[in-house]
């Protein structure tokens, strides 16, 4: 990289990509720790102690730490700076109040092993969130423990297996999964010891009901239905499908990772779904953080609630029996408790779930309320259909139907003209718009999956449409430029093959 002096303040530092250790100067410090205020204890045996020079961490001034990470932040797209029409990811605005609330000392500084009576405010947040998610899905058993969607799925599948085992049907080990499903579905099913059987999608983008009927047999454990599907469609045969599964003795698991299309419009439990999970970092607006942390609560029917992962918060009515009279007043004041459900699948992580994310989601739900949550879904649908309507003359649709919260375009016409979906996605980056989800679902050629969310304005959608049209024009005027995009970002396309073939996974001192 050039160390030359460049007369452009912004570009100059963006090309200085040296790592912390390359910037480290021995003896510098970014923090001063206080001296010990207690007498020093005898140290353990020398052979247990680390040599002082064994720990090679950066030595920086405090300003240089701040400037370095601030520089890195500017090499990034984000919701605060860019439109992210990233299908199935629900990149909506992350309200700032939620972050502010999560950082309150009464939430940020409580220890997970404090006694229940000392954390009643936190337990109330969790209890209320359980209630609200139960209401939104008509699945009243809610477990907040799962730390992300994939953990929610895994918990849901463990619940299904445990429930069937209790029925004496431990032989049921088949997970029926549509070919349009997200990759975590089969991966979670494999973790839960299930055999994956794939169900076809018909020409209208729906589950192939006859294929399902043929495969839902006495070994069926669960059918994992993504709703709306990854094609952005609501499954019109959902009740028939659920009946087929229930008649075969199995359970219906809805991958409700994304409830953004459904709030106030329909409740999964009403449709016969037994288990679902929801990603709070999608529908409920908690920030994605560049890849987490998230939260993936699992919701189940009343009958399955006793299998939920530990812990679940319960509310007592104040009549907890207490042996010691002097304790009674205290016990009465304590309303909320962490409990382990009777047939719990156990602990799937260290403590009680992503509490800092749960607080944000509950804050968000209060800001929206029942009426606002319905407005969320209404506008998410309108925005997606608006984009679909405006782009359909230029791009093929995966399925020519009204969509729910996202639309799947196919770049087939563009690929035939020599520019694959990948390049369209990369070219969008040059216009300051994040790429849509590409090549997913796998069953759509040259898929570009677009999910605008309800928090984007019509002007933003119109600009996206204009940019997509401009890129489509560029495919005729300058296809080469599109195929080599992006041109304006901190890096051009990266050599991923070499990264995998000769992995360099950490800083190392330059040897040359």
């Amino acid at each position: 990289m050039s160390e030359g002096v460049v007369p452009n303040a912004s570009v100059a530092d963006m090309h200085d990509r040296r790592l912390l250790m390359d910037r480290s100067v021995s003896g510098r410090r970014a923090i001063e720790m206080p001296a010990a205020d207690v007498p020093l204890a005898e140290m353990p045996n020398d052979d247990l102690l680390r040599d002082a020079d064994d720990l090679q961490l950066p030595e920086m001034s405090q300003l240089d730490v701040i400037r370095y990470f601030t520089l890195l932040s500017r090499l990034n797209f984000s919701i605060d700076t860019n439109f992210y029409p990233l299908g199935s990811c629900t990149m909506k605005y992350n309200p700032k109040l939620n972050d502010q609330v999560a950082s309150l000392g009464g939430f940020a500084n409580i220890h997970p092993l404090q006694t229940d009576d000392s954390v009643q405010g936190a337990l109330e947040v969790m209890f209320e969130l359980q209630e609200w998610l139960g209401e939104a899905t008509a699945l009243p058993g809610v477990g907040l423990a799962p730390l992300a969607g994939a953990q929610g799925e895994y918990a849901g599948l463990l619940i299904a297996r445990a429930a069937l085992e209790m029925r004496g049907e431990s032989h049921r080990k088949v997970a029926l999964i549509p070919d349009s499903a997200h990759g975590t579905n089969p991966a979670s099913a494999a973790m839960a010891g299930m055999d994956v059987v794939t169900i076809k999608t018909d020409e209208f983008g729906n589950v192939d009901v006859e294929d399902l009927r043929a495969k839902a047999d006495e070994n069926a454990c669960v059918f994992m239905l993504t709703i709306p599907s990854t094609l952005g469609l609501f499954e019109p045969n959902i009740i028939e499908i659920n009946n087929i599964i229930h008649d075969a003795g199995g359970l219906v698991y809805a991958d409700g990772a994304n409830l953004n299309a459904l709030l106030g419009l329909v409740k999964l439990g009403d449709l016969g779904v037994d288990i679902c999970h929801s990603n709070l970092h999608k529908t409920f607006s908690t920030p994605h953080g560049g890849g987490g942390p998230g939260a993936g609560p699992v919701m189940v029917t009343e009958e399955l609630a006793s299998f939920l992962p530990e812990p679940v918060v319960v509310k007592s009515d104040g009549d907890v029996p207490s042996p010691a009279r002097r304790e009674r007043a205290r016990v009465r004041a304590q309303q909320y408790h962490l409990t382990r459900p009777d047939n719990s699948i156990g602990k799937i992580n260290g403590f009680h779930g992503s509490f800092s994310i749960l607080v944000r989601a509950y804050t968000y739900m209060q800001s929206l309320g029942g009426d606002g949550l319905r407005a969320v879904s209404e506008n998410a649908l309108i925005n997606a259909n608006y984009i679909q309507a405006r782009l359909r003359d230029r791009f093929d649709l995966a399925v020519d139907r009204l969509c729910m919260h996202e639309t799947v375009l196919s770049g087939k016409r563009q690929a035939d003209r020599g520019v694959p979906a990948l390049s369209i996605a990369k070219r969008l980056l040059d216009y300051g718009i994040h790429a849509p989800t590409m090549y997913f679902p796998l069953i759509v050629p040259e898929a570009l999956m677009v999910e605008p969310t309800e928090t984007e304005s019509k002007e933003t959608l119109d600009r996206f449409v204009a940019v997509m049209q401009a890129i489509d024009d560029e495919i005729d005027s300058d296809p080469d430029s599109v195929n080599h995009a992006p041109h304006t970002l901190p890096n051009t396309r990266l050599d991923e093959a070499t990264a995998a073939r000769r992995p360099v996974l950490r800083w190392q001192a330059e040897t040359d």
Partner: protein
Amino acid sequence: MTSNADSPHPFIPNTPSERAQMLATIGVDDFDALITDIPEQHRNSSLQLPNAASELEVATRMQALAALNQDAGTRPSFLGAGAYRHFIPSTVGAILQRGEFVTSYTPYQPEAAQGVLQSGFEFQSAVAQIFGMEVANAGMYDGPTAFAEAGLMAARVSRRNRILILDTADKRLFEVAEAYARYQQVEIEAISRESVLNGDVPDDAACIAFQSPNFLGRIEDVQALTDAAHAAGALSVMHTYPTALGMFKSPGEFDVDIATGEGQPLGVPLTFGGAYVGLFTAKQRFIRQLPGRIIGRTSDTLGRTGYTLTLQTREQHIRRERATSNICTSTQLIGLMVAVYCATMGPSGLRKVAELSYHKAHYLANAIDALPGWNVIRESDPPSPSQGQIQRGGPSPDTFFNEFAVECPIAPSDVNRLLAGRGIIGGLDVSDVVPYGILLCVTEMNSRQDIDRLVDALSGIGNGGVA
């Protein structure tokens, strides 16, 4: 809505007239035409929830809920056991204010995510360095899930199916490992230190997995456990408290194969147990068996350095049911906090935090030992099950970092209640592991004054001041 129906919610920009315009472009008369696929009898099921509230109202309610909790930031606390109250430098919070990090997506488009990727590479570098291990991944959900996945990885690497966990580990580690392994055709079993050190390890063991410092805070003989594992053809898997590595030898120095830890002590607030970040490190030769995201260095078409997610063929979105893990969204932002923490603390800061915690904890232990009726529990006290250990030249079985168990004169739950009455968050009741046991933890956050206050309170209890 709280305001009149013509005004959209602050988070939703479409005005009624824009909605009408957009519906016309879509070619439908009204919104209901968009949801005809939903079965009619279940359509428009209204949400029985309160209506929208203003920012002022919500903030007020949430502040009131926060105020109901006893904040360990404003009173002395001696709770540890897997979540630790350490100093968090101001730089961490400052960088965490950057919406460019907070509101970005998983870096599937590396050209538009170099900030997340390069900071993640810094995280991997720092974690590998602290652990003295060759590679680290970009983070797991939390410490216990990292430990569980390490056991499963050991089974894949060794092609053996018995994951043996030393019985001195936190029971949470067992429980999570059991939940992860339930249907994976592997067995999770507890094994005693004596069995391992006597060479009594079954020959189908995938690994000897242990926690050091262990649940009761003591330093295990990592070298002896690792040697015993290797002698049985098994992997050595260590779960640790990363702050301790500021002064104690790293897993890498003992030839441990896979080392995991809870990242929370490195700059992450307690937040009632999450979100945290699991640290996962291993020897280089296992990289294709690692779970989770990994960031690698590469170059772009102009030859400039850049970073990208790599080795993705292990992952669920490529390999589906044959993936090494189902993990997808993980804990990138918490990893960023760890990266900023490590850059700020540097080698001298991390060592200082470890040493302060060590000295203060020993100060408290010595003071409690001097109290009548109170005893710091020592393994070397007779009757001890592990007499053989000292002769091996490893740590004394009583070497501890910053946590230790104490035998109380009354039930530990009563001790904690009495302490709460004096504004002190006590220790963890471990009477299910050691009779009358309470586990106390001290960090650099506990001032000498706080410690003296605790000792004073305990002395009152020891003198029969129970009532």
